[in-house]
Each structure stands twice: as C-alpha cells, then as structure tokens.
C-alpha cells in the first residue's frame, strides 16, 4: 500500500477561509487527549488554558503585551515568506533590535528628552534590519541557504546578548545580577491605560505596522513585486524586478520589524536589558504568520491566539503543575494542524492498495 497526494482541481473557498479555525479546533482536541494522558482533568485544563486568561481586564493587558511582539514580527515574516525568502532568524533580529535600541539609555543615560524614545525605536529597527541583512548578503553573494544562516545567527545573537548583559553592560550597582541599569522613564514605552493594566504602546505600533504593510501588499507596486517574485522568480525577472534586491528588501523589512519588536519589549515590558529578553517570540511568530495566512491583518488575530498559549501555559503551570513546555507543544501542534489543513485543501489523499500490476485475466 502506498499513500499518494493528488492535487485537487479546485480549492474549496469555504475551507480555505475556515482552515485556521479548523486547525485551532484540532489543536484543542489534541490538547484534550494530551491532558487526559497526563492524568489531568482535561476540561478544567482547557479552561485554564484558553478561557481563564481572558476573564479579567488586567489579563487582557497581559495578552496584548505578549501579542504585540508576535504580531509585529509576523507582519514582517509574512512579506518575507510571500517573496519566497525563508527568514527563520527573527528571534536573533529581535534580540539585536533590543540591544541596538538599548544603546541609547545605557551608554547615554543623561540623554533624556522627547527624542529619546523615537531614537531608540529607530535604532531597534536598524539593529534588527542589519542582523537580517547578513543572511540576505550571504544568500545573494554566496548562494547560501538563508534558512540555515538566519537560524544559526540566532545563537550568535543570544550569546552576544548574554555576554553584554553579564559583562560590559552589567549595572555596576546591580549586586552582580546580570542585566543593565533600569531605563529612565523617558526611555520607557508608555502604558496605554495605566489605571487598568500594564499593556504598553507596542500593541498599537504592531497594529499600525500591520495596517501599513497590508496596504503595501494590496495596493502598491512593491507588494505586486513581492507576489510576482515569490510566485515565479523567472516571471519576476521578465518584469524587470531584481530578485537579489527583493531578498534584501524582505530580510531588511522582516528583520527591522523584529528589531522594533525587540526594543518595544525591552523598553516597554522589561525596562532593562537582560540576558534573555524573549521567550521564543521570533520562532512563535513563524506560526503566527502562517496561522494568519501570510496576511498582515490575519497576523493580528493569529498573534492574539498564540499569545493566549503563552498565558495559558503559565496558568496551567501554576494551577495544575503542568510544565510550561506544554505551551511549546501547543504551538507546535497548531503549526502542524495549520499546515496539514492547508495541504489537504490543495490535495486529497489516495490510498493505493495491492501489488502493482499483475495480469488480471
């Protein structure tokens, strides 16, 4: 017996639209099975995972804090993936953005005015973009595989941050704990509604970024260029578009947005440069991008869903004593089901039985 994937002549428009919801449903179902096998009450666990984090206002603020970096990174990645460039290193670009933006408050703590924050955000974008430009350069110059180089640079960035936070940037008055000085208020991203919760402006910036990129992809020649070069590089060359310039554009945009997310996280949620600043946002954002169907607006909704798995994981750890690694399992399952649903929308499965070919007569 063998299994064949056969391309469907037409894709169902209905199922293309509900595919992310279907994937979500399957993930919940799989969660039910996992919790049962772990010997935890499955319904209660699912409640703690998916409903409880939404029950109070301050928790919604927490959700927005987690969703902001996911959305911002995923918006850039969706453009990058549409153009057929596979940036897997957003985590590293996020970290470098955080470092670059922190240079201002750490090296010039006295520079405190209305320009401090905008400059930090700009530096964050540039830092991430510079980090993203490295795999782009390697790809266009030496024809290296950007998936490998961008991923490997994540480890470089993580260790570089670790070295900075424990070494040169360590707060001299910090009792030898790793981490920089605490940022002055002029270098902190303000909270949106301080009386209700701690969500900062990052979520607003993320939504604005999504809207701008959506307009670009839908209405501008540049968006057309992304689609053409991503769909058919040869046709792109025929159109007069440069595929190597597109590699740089895609990596600089996605790296830059990841870097912006990085500095937003550092100056908003954390308030200092620490040895770790991300619980894997750069990787989870890959799932967000696909769950949002590589559409910047879709990434907003998908970002909140993934943020929920982070909060739910923390909640389940506290109430049920389940390892927070379960959150990672959830994220993996979600990606698996999204890709699975998409594959089955485009292909159907055929089982071919029997020994191929013997005379029947």
């Amino acid at each position: 017996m063998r299994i064949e994937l056969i391309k469907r002549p037409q894709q169902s428009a209905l199922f293309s639209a509900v595919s992310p919801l279907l994937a979500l449903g399957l993930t919940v179902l799989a969660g039910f099975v996992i919790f049962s096998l772990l010997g935890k009450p499955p319904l209660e666990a699912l409640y703690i995972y998916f409903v409880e984090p939404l029950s109070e206002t301050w928790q919604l603020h927490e959700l927005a804090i987690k969703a902001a970096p996911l959305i911002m990174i995923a918006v850039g990645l969706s453009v990058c993936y549409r153009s057929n460039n596979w940036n897997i290193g957003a985590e590293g670009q996020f970290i470098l953005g955080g470092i670059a933006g922190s240079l201002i408050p750490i090296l010039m703590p006295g520079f405190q005015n209305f320009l401090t924050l905008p400059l930090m955000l700009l530096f964050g974008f540039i830092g991430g973009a510079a980090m993203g430009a490295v795999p782009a350069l390697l790809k266009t110059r030496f024809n290296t595989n950007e998936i490998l180089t961008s991923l490997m640079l994540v480890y470089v960035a993580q260790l570089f941050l670790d070295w900075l936070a424990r070494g040169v940037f360590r707060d001299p008055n910090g009792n030898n704990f790793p981490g920089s000085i605490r940022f002055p208020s002029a270098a902190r991203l303000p909270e949106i509604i301080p009386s209700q919760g701690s969500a900062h402006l990052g979520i607003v910036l993320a939504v604005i970024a999504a809207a701008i990129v959506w307009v670009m992809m839908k209405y501008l020649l540049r968006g057309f260029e992304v689609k053409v070069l991503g769909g058919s590089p040869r046709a792109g060359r025929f159109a007069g578009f440069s595929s190597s310039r597109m590699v740089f554009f895609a990596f600089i945009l996605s790296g830059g947005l990841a870097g912006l997310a990085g500095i937003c996280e550092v100056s908003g949620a954390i308030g200092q440069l620490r040895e770790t600043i991300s619980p894997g946002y750069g990787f989870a954002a890959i799932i967000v991008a696909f769950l949002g169907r590589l559409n910047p607006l879709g990434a907003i909704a998908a970002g909140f869903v993934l943020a929920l798995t982070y909060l739910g994981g923390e909640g389940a750890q506290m109430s049920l004593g389940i390892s927070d690694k379960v959150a990672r399992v959830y994220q993996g399952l979600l990606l698996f089901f999204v890709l699975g649903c998409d594959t089955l929308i485009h292909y159907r499965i055929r089982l071919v039985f029997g020994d191929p070919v013997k005379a029947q007569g």
Partner: protein
Amino acid sequence: MQSGSEGTPLLKTVGLTKVFGEVKACNGIDLSIAPGEIHALLGENGAGKSTLVKMMFGVLDPSEGEILWKGQPVRIGSPGEARRLGIGMVFQHFSLFEALTAAENIALVLEEKTPISKIAETARKLSVDYGLPLDPNSMVGDLSVGERQRIEIIRCLLQKPDLIILDEPTSVLTPQEANKMFETLERLKAEGKSILYISHRLDEVKRLCDTATVLRHGKVVGHCVPREETASSLANMMVGSDVETVKREGAVPEFGKPLIEIRNLERPPATPFSIPLRGIDLTVRAGEIVGIAGVAGNGQGEFFEAVSGEATQKRADIVSLNGQDCGDKGISGRRILGVGFVPEERLGHGAVPSLPLSENMLLSRHRTDAKSMLGPFGFVRNAAVRSASKRVIGEMDVRKTAEDPEAAALSGGNLQKYLIGRELDRQPAVMIVDQPTWGVDAGAAARIRKALIALARSGSAVLVISQDLDELFEISDSIAVMHDGRLSEPVPIAEATYEKIGLLMGGAEPGHMAFEGVKEEAGA
C-alpha cells in the same frame, strides 16, 4: 484498417478513459495495433495523445476501460511492468541524467545486474547495427539533442520490446536527422516489431505510417490509412474544421531603417549545461520579419534572454533596439525604448500562473505605462490596468470562463493570445517573440501569426524565434538559423528551402561542429 483486422492485435484498448479533476483527457479510446505495423497517433496539442500513451506505458492509471496485450487484459502499474510485457517508450522530453555517461543511463533502466562495460559493448554493437552511431562512454550533457534521442532509442531496443512508443520523436531533429531515424523505424518494422508513432507532422505520418488513429479533445474521431489521405484531409480531421492558412501579401515590401542591431554578441554559458553564444550579428529593419530557426537547445533561450535584457551585456553598443544602444540596460530599460517581448514559457516566465490576468498586465507594463497605471508612492491604478486588460482581451479574442481569471486557468492558446496582445497593445516599434505558437491550437496560431504580420506591415521590426519551420516559412521575410550558439546569415525567403534551412540546422556552415551524416550530405 485492413492490416489491423487480421489475427490478434498486439495491443488493444477498450474504452480507455483518464479523468483529471473534471476534465476527461482521454474519453473512451478504442485503438488496436497489429503486429509489425507502424501506427500513427495524430492530434493537436492537448488532444490527449500523451495521456493515452502514458496509460499504455504504466505512467498513469486509467480511470476506466482496459488494455489488452496479445489478447489478454492487463493492468500496467509502472513503466517497469510495461517493459517486462514488452512495451518500450521514447519520451518527448528525455529522461536522461546529464552528468552520467550514455552507458550509465542505459544501465539505470535495465533490471538485471550487468557490468557497465558489457552494457556499453552491447549498446555500441546495437547502435552500429541500426545505423545510429553512439559512443556509450560520452557524457550525456555534452551530447546534441539528436544524439540523446539515439540513447533513448538504443536503451529501448536493448530490452527487446514488441511495441515501441515514440512521442513526437522528430520535434527535436533536423530534417536530415529525421530521415535517418525513419530508416531505422522501417527496419524495426521489417523485423516484425510494432511502432506507435505520435506526431502532428502530417507529411511524416503519410510517408511512414500504415494506419492512423486521430484524436480530438480526448476522443477518437477517426481511423484511417494515411497514404490514402491528403495532408489537408488529415489536418481537418485533427482540427475539426478547415484550417486557415495565413497568406503573405504578394510583393516584398520595402524595409526601413534598422530597428534591431546586434553586433558580435557573446555570452558565456550561465550553467554547465547551457549553450554559450558566439559572435552573433543580426539586423532587422522596420517592416521586416526575421525568423530564427534551429533545433531546440541550440542557444535560442540564451539568445532571447540576452536580447530582452534579462541578461545584460557589458557594452551598450552590442545590442541596439529602436535606434538606441541599450546593451547595458535591463529589460525595463529596453521596454521603454518601445520594445515588446514574449518569451517561450507562458506560465512562469511570461505570466505568473497564480495571478489574475489583469495583474499579469502589470507584469510587463508597470514601467512603460507608469503614467497611466501607477499613482503616487507606486499605488496601482486598478481601473486603468483592468481597462487595458479588457482592451487586449477584446482585441485578441481571448476566450475565458471568468471575468478576470488566473493566468493558469486559461488554455495555452488563449493565454498566448493575451501575452502577445499585451505587447501589441503598446504598438511596439520592435517585437521579439520566442516560440509564438508553441502548444497553441490552430485557430489561435493563425490569429497570432496574422497579428505579427500586421505589426510588421505597419512599420515595426519583428524577430520570431521558432522551432516550427512551417510557421517561419509562412511569416518570415528572411530566416536565419541558430546552431550551437551561432547564428547563420539570414536567408531571404525567396531563396530559402526546407533542405537549405535543414542543413543549416544541422550545423552545415563551414567551421561548425556537424553531425557526420549531415556533413556527408552537405558535401555531396
């Protein structure tokens, strides 16, 4: 018919049907091949010929119907199974590994474990026997298309098949090479082997084949004896209506100033298996159509890329279009000079398959029509793009099922009409087209040829690269031949004959690498 009716047919299909999605590529095909006959399978592109033989060779599973082999119903699940039964096939697109030698390629399909040296020896003997000389130790990547086909045929013969299926074998050969192959086929027939010969070249079929089955839209529309038919009666059967031939106006018109000038164009090979261009010179004047003939894979694709600016030249004066040196400009820069390009591949080169027609309009027009189609910040003016698209669809009679369908949803002929119309709509001073009617139905092909002639008569220079000699003779004012990356002097149409062009296609010009057979004929 008569030769097929005596005794048990070697192979017979009963109601053979293959459904792809909702399309019946083959619909209830009944066909029988007698031992020792050459049977032609005729039909236009897309008539279902290739699908049918793929089912016979075990590449595709039939959806319905059955195949009888020597009177016994069989289910052929894989090419290996077909070979074991005694069916051999030579594909239209060769299935050879370029980085292996001929003998190694042959060894790959043989099932028993024979040492390569022994296979090489057998292959050499067999090839000499059948008049298809072949060096088994040569690397396939270095061989010409004709030589590669010999490997496929020898590989097929080594398995001692009773039935040999040949899928458009002459489409890649010069007329002289094709003649040699016909001799081989006659000899195989004399040995009692059957041959299923797929082609849309009617003169070949008339000359070679004993019986013929004609397919149209996946159905059998007739069985006949080709020798008793005329070329036009066969063509009518294939197309289903009288084929319109494009007539050129009587007198040769006066040509204006040169609009395409190519001076000593050289291009090193971009990949190990692509053809370098060597010292190409060419001039096309206003009002003139120059055709470039040649066997596939002799540098036509590389030449198109160099002229279109997808690959640029080091110096501006190597290529001059519409009176301006532009060798250093990219494709957009050349389009702005008033040049239109249509590449060979429609899907994936001339158009993005997944994008709607209107967005494909923007593909080649976003720079030349930036004023009307783009607004500030590169905002696309969809209304202007759509109206241009509508204009082209009306002008070229593009038939489609939806208002603005994806490019991939159109038939080859209709998409090609759209892509040609996309450029004609700008009234280009220079038009360069690669394989304008490749895989296009007869009606659309006539429409496209007419449009190209009309463009030239209105004072533009037109350069057509094509493997279809009939087409070039029909529309060109002169024909040049590309062989091994070099271009011959253009031959004015009044002096051009199939023999002359055929010899040039084989590389007969002095100083060129030539096939041995052709050299002798040229010298004689």
